[in-house]
């Protein structure tokens, strides 16, 4: 088949109906541009919301859960081994929250090829004293450099520098706490630990994650300061936070690590299942709207090609009389449709990029998200590939039926009808 000739004929037919062709192509352009903008924006938003949680949450967290001993003494007794034993009033065992042999565990984890990095942490409840009022809260003792590397902690410091935490007896407190106690950077805050120890720490920064519940209670200090506060040795840590290269493997890795180190482990997916659901629903909505727009554009193309066939009956008849087969005629009309799809689709990609760039610079400032200044956009090239494939697919389908119709035109009927 002579595709050059077929394309040439298709182009000439299109030129003859330039206006309609342009309208049809604009339909595709609009559909693709909207699809790109919508998907990019929605995914930008998803990334933002995911990041909000993901940045603050390790993929796997190892810790000691407070729970009763699984192996109760009765199970050791030979006499009752085969019986079903009921035990009342079990209390959780005091194993301490400290992770035993933590330094070795961290060393092993850091050597694991699946692990990006490991950040040790101490979580402990405290009271913040403000005059006569005690406000309960949490101090997280963090390894400053690891925390910054894994969780981009400095993104959430609205006042002060994270590196100041390495000074002795310094603390960064949540915005909610600071507001409640009328404290600012440079002030001294008094703390009572759960064991009754008193301490004064210097505020070197204010943090804001954007989730009020966290900002109202949380504060951050270095591992060393936290250990000092609690009167614990330098190997005392309560949590090991792990980031993996492949987040999707977190559940299985968590299970494996829990077994290896005889600790409790929780993975990202289990901890944040509601966020996953939200993201996928938003994606589905944006894809659905994009597809609907393209289907509408497809109907436009279908209409215009149908009209063109009625207009060009004579041309189709003479092409067939002079040696063009039905399939040649079919390909002429499919290429018509494809030309509209390719041109409209490419323009759609360009306009989609322009629209998203415009959205990207629209100011979007909210107290809850201190690091976000404009609407979030995800410029993933995959969206553009999907967009152009959608455009080609819908236009080919829209062109197929008119093309089949044209291929079945009986030249005798047309020529004899004159």
């Amino acid at each position, binding site marked *: 088949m002579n595709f050059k000739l077929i394309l040439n004929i298709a182009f000439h037919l299109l030129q003859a109906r330039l206006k309609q062709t342009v309208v049809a192509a604009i339909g595709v352009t609009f559909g693709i541009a909207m699809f790109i903008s919508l998907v990019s924006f929605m995914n930008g938003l998803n990334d933002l919301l995911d990041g909000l949680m993901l940045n603050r949450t390790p993929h796997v967290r190892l810790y000691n859960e407070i729970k009763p001993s699984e192996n109760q003494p009765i199970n050791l007794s030979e006499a009752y081994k085969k019986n079903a034993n009921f035990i009342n009033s079990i209390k959780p065992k005091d194993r301490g929250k400290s992770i035993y042999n933590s330094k070795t565990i961290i060393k092993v984890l850091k050597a694991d090829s699946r692990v990006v990095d490991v950040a040790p942490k101490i979580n402990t409840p405290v009271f913040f004293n403000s005059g006569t009022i005690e406000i309960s809260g949490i101090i997280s003792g963090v390894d400053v450099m690891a925390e910054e590397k894994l969780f981009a902690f400095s993104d959430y410091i609205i006042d002060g520098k994270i590196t100041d935490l390495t000074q002795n007896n310094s603390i960064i407190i949540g915005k909610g706490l600071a507001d409640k106690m009328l404290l600012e950077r440079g002030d001294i805050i008094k703390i009572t630990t759960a064991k009754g120890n008193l301490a004064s720490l210097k505020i070197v920064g204010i943090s804001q994650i954007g989730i009020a519940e966290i900002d109202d209670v949380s504060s951050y200090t270095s591992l060393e300061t936290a250990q000092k506060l609690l009167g614990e040795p330098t190997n005392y840590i309560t949590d090991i936070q792990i980031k993996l290269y492949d987040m999707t493997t977190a559940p299985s890795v968590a299970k494996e690590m829990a077994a290896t180190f005889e600790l409790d482990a929780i993975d990202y997916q289990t901890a944040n299942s509601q966020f996953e659901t939200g993201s996928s629903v938003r994606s589905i909505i944006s894809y659905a709207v994009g597809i609907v727009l393209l289907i509408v554009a497809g109907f436009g193309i279908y209409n215009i090609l149908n009209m063109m066939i009625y207009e060009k009956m004579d041309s189709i008849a003479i092409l067939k009389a002079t040696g063009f087969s039905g399939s040649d005629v079919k390909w002429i009309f499919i290429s018509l449709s494809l030309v509209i799809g390719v041109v409209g689709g490419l323009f759609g990609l360009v306009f989609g990029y322009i629209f998203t760039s415009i959205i990207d610079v629209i100011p979007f400032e909210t107290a809850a998200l201190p690091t976000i200044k404009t609407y979030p956009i995800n410029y993933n090239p995959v969206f553009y590939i999907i967009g152009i494939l959608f455009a080609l697919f819908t236009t080919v389908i829209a062109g197929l039926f008119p093309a089949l119709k044209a291929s079945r035109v009986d030249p005798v009927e047309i*020529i004899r009808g004159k």
Partner: protein
Amino acid sequence: MNNTVLETKALNKYFNDPIRFQVLKNIALTINHGEFVSIVGKSGCGKSTLLYLLSTMDTDYEGEIYIHNELVTNKSDAALAKIRSENIGFVFQFHYLLNEYNVLKNVMLPGLKLAKYSTKEIEHRAMEHLKTLDMQDQALKMPNQLSGGQKQRVAIARALINDPLIIMGDEPTGNLDKKNSDMVFDIFNQLTIEKNQTLLIVTHDNDFAHRTHRIVTMEDGSIIES
């Protein structure tokens, strides 16, 4: 190698709408190389129907048609399109030129489809045909800028582009005045004389028919005189 260009055996054709009606009855016709044949008959006698069966465009018939001793009955759409492209040139009552292309391109189009020659060669041949028909000055005009007689001459040039075995015409002079009709006849006549071109023309113009070499007269779906 015998000289037959077109041959039919026991050709029957029915119209089924609105009632079953036999249009062609047992047509047996042989056309030899170099003949200038006209088919005449009253309106509705089936002469155009016969032409379209012979043209391979209408495939709904009983019997057999041979073009150049090759059976074309029951061939596929694509195969028939190729046969038309190689062997048959058409001139209709209406010119059927594509308004999107200029005259030269219209003439070239069937040649480009067959692609027996290079584009350059086809263009050269198209120009030659237009020159023979005294249309070389109009080559780059669009069809809607031409008169009726000129358009028909372009259509004839288009029919000639692939050096067809036979040129078929369905009332090629039907829309033309006397002067232009004569001109078209002269062109056809010249083709038979100079190039030994085979022609099969359906017409109701008796004047035209009487000047051809052989007249096939039809009545009620049968050939009554050949």
